[in-house]
């Protein structure tokens, strides 16, 4: 499986396409920027989290996000199944109204064997 880097960002950034199970849409396709500085599974904007009804599949534990400037924020977190073609994983999906990014963090990335081919601008799942 190969995914082209996002060329709209300078320098280009690796991204992957995943499908997540949500109470509203069974297989919702998401394009995520790979961010190894993010320790969670998936991060999406709160508006999308709410739209997909992930608020109906929340976990009992409380998750606190620590922003790079050291400020803690309370995250909204659901546990769901993520699929990348035939691969399937249980991953936490986090969100917060002030965060507008779609990221794939280490909880997801560490379950994959990934080759970052910078010169080709391609991410390959081995």
């Amino acid at each position, binding site marked *: 499986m190969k995914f082209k880097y996002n060329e709209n960002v300078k320098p280009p950034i690796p991204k992957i396409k995943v499908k997540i199970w949500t109470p509203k849409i069974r297989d919702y396709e998401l394009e995520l920027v790979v961010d190894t500085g*993010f320790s969670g599974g998936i991060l999406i904007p709160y*508006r999308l989290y709410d739209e997909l009804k992930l608020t109906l599949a*929340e976990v009992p534990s409380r998750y606190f996000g620590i922003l790079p400037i050291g400020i803690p924020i309370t995250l909204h977190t659901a546990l769901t199944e993520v699929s990348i073609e035939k691969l399937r994983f249980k991953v936490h999906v986090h969100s917060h109204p002030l965060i507008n990014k779609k990221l794939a963090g280490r909880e997801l990335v560490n379950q994959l064997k990934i080759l970052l081919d910078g010169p080709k601008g391609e991410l390959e799942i081995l």
Partner: protein
Amino acid sequence: MGNVIVVKNVDKNLYRRLKSTASLKGYTIGEALNEAIKLWLMLNEAVNRDYLDYLTCRERSEEKLKEINEKYCKKCKGKYVVVCDGIFIGIFNNEKEALNSVCKSKARECIIAKLGEPIKEEKVEFGMGVL
């Protein structure tokens, strides 16, 4: 020159602070104001009444879950409990059944928990990519 907008009643002290912080960070005043406006809009769009309702529902569900955990923890250990908007929906044999029950729900917020498992506080670290 780009777009010029004249704004009345700007607090002089706030403007002075904005000017000095912007110049320290290498921003023009226009760039700093654009960032500030974006943040203000995002904050006001996000924290609306619907969001506050959701937070209230989550709080109610957490309280109810505590009660249910105390009541059924030993009897139904390992089974899944669903609480929606502070209302106990039921205990299910597996996660799939629990998820099916929330799919039909018209609630604002639901928690799915495994009985007997501790409720933890976890830390998630963000890199600069989040900004």
